[in-house]
């Protein structure tokens, strides 16, 4: 006989889970009692939101399903932002929540919340398990759904009596998952692939627009091979950074609102846009009618609903990006020279590099560049959201997939620090940096306690400008510098870190940057760097809201 709690914990281990992130509470007592003797590692966070983000960071860094655990009511509700973050970026996590006993369901019982109802629009699927007999199967389905097709979060809500009851249960007897309503298309349609290849030969000015789907399906190698074989330039989305090395000659950098001029010009002028694992998000397209308006479009994506959602597509290919790219590579016969186009692009790249004022002021871009130089493309970089995120995307040189972890779709401030904790458990040998703003860091600053008590060697580099910088930038540019509620009081983050038992250094000049970064990297445990950067630095270039992406402000003009 096994309790539901035991079926759960053993089931997690059978799914290959080694680490979970959680926070105990009343109705998960039976599960926590089971964890007490289990070899499953449980990391106690200080707020459930951090558990969800840590599971998400783990999943993005490892490519495996991340797991978080919380109690009912407030515990479950605190996971919501983390689940929504994972949903928007198609990250596979399984969130397990306790629920009040089945006899009290719907009764407004203490710490009851309808978490399956609440998370309906932000999960790929969710379950309320009403019988212990269903728990094993539901868990298998949850991992299967989270980790296949277009990946995403799945929530499993377990009432207390379901985890307490004992039943006969045999894992070996459980059948493989079959869901008649869920059969993702993995192989691309052969004829569509042929059509795409023809279109590539017909094109004169093609551009590959690569998104997070490349990372999710581990297709970076195939992407680079395709680009190199055809000699087609590549621009990546925020989520696609690392899919092609930053310094690859065919890489145009990021496109969109804070993309490079060369990427945005190339897409605007292109006559063929090859979208791979990308979803034509508004931060990428700007004014939709002007986006790649001269181009025919090939769109490769695992989710049929993304095709044609925002932009009419000429050749849709539904399938796993890696599989489709492999098929394309196998079929490639003809080649064509796009030399004139490549020369134009090289011209843009030379004329419009990313740049910032280089002087004695401590500028945030400089901090990111120096960190990039020190780590030499190694390590895992996590960011918060806002200016810190955009500067990192622009100035850190990502060379490998899964080394850049950021909340792209939902834009969740407070994501970075707990996600960095998760990334550490996925890749314990890697240096993990959270590049933060002073605003974002304070949204999950309590996790300093988690890293201190577990000696988790996550480094936090705060680009401290005492502003909610990105909002301030918009106020400066579009609201006459009326800084409505965006100025933050000074915080001594080193003192805060010390209070939690974490070391830190305050940095106020350019000369101190490299030694401070080195000190952080060389420290075995967690470390906090408080960079007092130029306060009103802006992220440029920038496409104003509603403008076409070639109408950029800031940076070097044509």
């Amino acid at each position: 006989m096994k309790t539901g709690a035991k079926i759960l914990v053993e089931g997690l281990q059978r799914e290959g889970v080694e680490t979970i992130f959680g926070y105990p509470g009343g109705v998960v007592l039976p599960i926590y009692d089971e964890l007490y003797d289990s070899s499953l590692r449980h990391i106690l966070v200080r707020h459930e939101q951090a558990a969800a983000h840590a599971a998400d960071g783990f999943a993005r860094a490892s490519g495996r399903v991340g797991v978080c655990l919380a109690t009912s009511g407030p515990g479950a509700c605190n996971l919501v932002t983390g689940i929504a973050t994972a949903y928007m970026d198609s990250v596979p996590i399984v969130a397990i929540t306790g629920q009040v006993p089945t006899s009290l369901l719907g009764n407004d019982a203490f710490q009851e919340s309808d978490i399956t109802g609440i998370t309906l629009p932000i999960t790929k699927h969710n379950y309320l398990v009403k019988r212990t007999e269903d728990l094993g199967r539901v868990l298998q389905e949850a991992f299967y759904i989270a980790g296949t097709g277009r990946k995403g979060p799945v929530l499993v809500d377990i009432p207390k009596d379901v985890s307490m009851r004992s039943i006969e249960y045999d894992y070996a007897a459980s059948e493989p998952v079959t869901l008649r309503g869920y059969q993702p298309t993995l192989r691309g349609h052969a004829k569509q692939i042929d059509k795409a290849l023809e279109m590539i030969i017909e094109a004169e000015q093609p551009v590959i627009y690569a998104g997070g789907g490349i990372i999710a399906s581990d297709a970076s190698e195939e992407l680079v091979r395709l680009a190199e074989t055809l000699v087609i330039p590549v621009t990546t989305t925020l989520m696609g950074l690392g899919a092609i090395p930053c310094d690859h000659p065919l890489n145009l950098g990021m496109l969109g609102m804070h993309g490079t001029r060369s990427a945005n010009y190339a897409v605007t002028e292109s006559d063929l846009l090859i979208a791979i694992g990308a979803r034509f998000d508004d931060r990428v397209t700007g004014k939709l009618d002007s986006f790649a308006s001269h181009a025919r479009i090939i769109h490769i994506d695992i989710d049929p609903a993304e095709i044609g959602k925002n932009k009419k597509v000429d050749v849709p290919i539904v399938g796993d990006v890696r599989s489709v790219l492999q098929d394309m590579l196998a079929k490639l016969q003809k080649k064509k020279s796009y030399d004139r186009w490549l020369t134009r692009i090289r011209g843009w790249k030379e004329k419009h590099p990313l740049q910032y004022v280089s002087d004695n002021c401590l500028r945030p871009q400089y901090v990111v560049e120096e960190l990039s130089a020190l780590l030499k493309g190694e390590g895992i970089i996590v960011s918060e959201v806002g200016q810190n995120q955009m500067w990192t995307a622009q100035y850190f040189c990502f060379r490998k997939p899964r080394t850049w972890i950021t909340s792209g779709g939902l834009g969740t401030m407070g994501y970075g620090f707990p996600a960095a904790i998760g990334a550490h458990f996925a890749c314990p040998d890697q240096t993990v940096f959270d590049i933060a703003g002073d605003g974002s860091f304070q949204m999950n600053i309590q996790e300093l306690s988690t890293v201190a008590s577990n000696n988790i060697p996550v480094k936090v580099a705060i680009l401290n400008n005492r502003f909610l910088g990105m909002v301030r930038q918009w106020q400066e540019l579009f609201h006459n510098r009326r800084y409505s509620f965006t100025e933050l009081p000074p915080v001594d983050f080193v003192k805060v870190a010390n209070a939690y038992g974490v070391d830190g250094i305050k940095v106020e000049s350019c000369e101190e940057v490299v030694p401070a970064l080195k000190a952080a990297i060389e420290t075995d445990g967690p470390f906090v760097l408080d960079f007092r950067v130029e306060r009103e630095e802006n992220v440029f270039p920038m496409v104003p809201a509603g403008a076409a992406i070639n109408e950029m402000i800031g940076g070097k003009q044509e």
Partner: protein
Amino acid sequence: MKPHTLSVLVENKAGVLSRVTGLFSRRGYNIESLAVGICEEPGMSRITIVCIGDDAGIEQVMKQLNKLIDVIKVSDLTDNERVERELALIKVTAEPGTSRAEVMQLATIFRAQIIDVAAKTIILSITGDTEKIDAFEKLLRQYGVKELVRTGRIAMLRGSKMLKGVK
């Protein structure tokens, strides 16, 4: 923009209806009519939804519906030969000696059934397409419609074509 009749085959499980309808409201589409019931396959239900939208919008809704794990198949019947039916129950004032005979005569013309008779009212049951029921209800209004209950629309392809199958 025109009304589309969507037939959605789903797992007969708790919460499926809210997953389906929640998707419509979340993505900004209005449901004009909704009917749910079990179907020929054990363990499945069929939801018939009438929704107004342009072709691109409806295509997007159908793709999003298909992504729901508990949705097995989604079909748009709009451009196919089909039969559609709704049912309405109408409680109408029909006092003996005054309007009762006229109401009963209208019922005969519309092939409605009288399913309850009381001292001052009768209840009529009518099936048909939307237009027929609308017309009947409009005619009855002069006698005093006390209460009207209508089902959502259900639809089926004509001939031997079927809606079955998995996505």
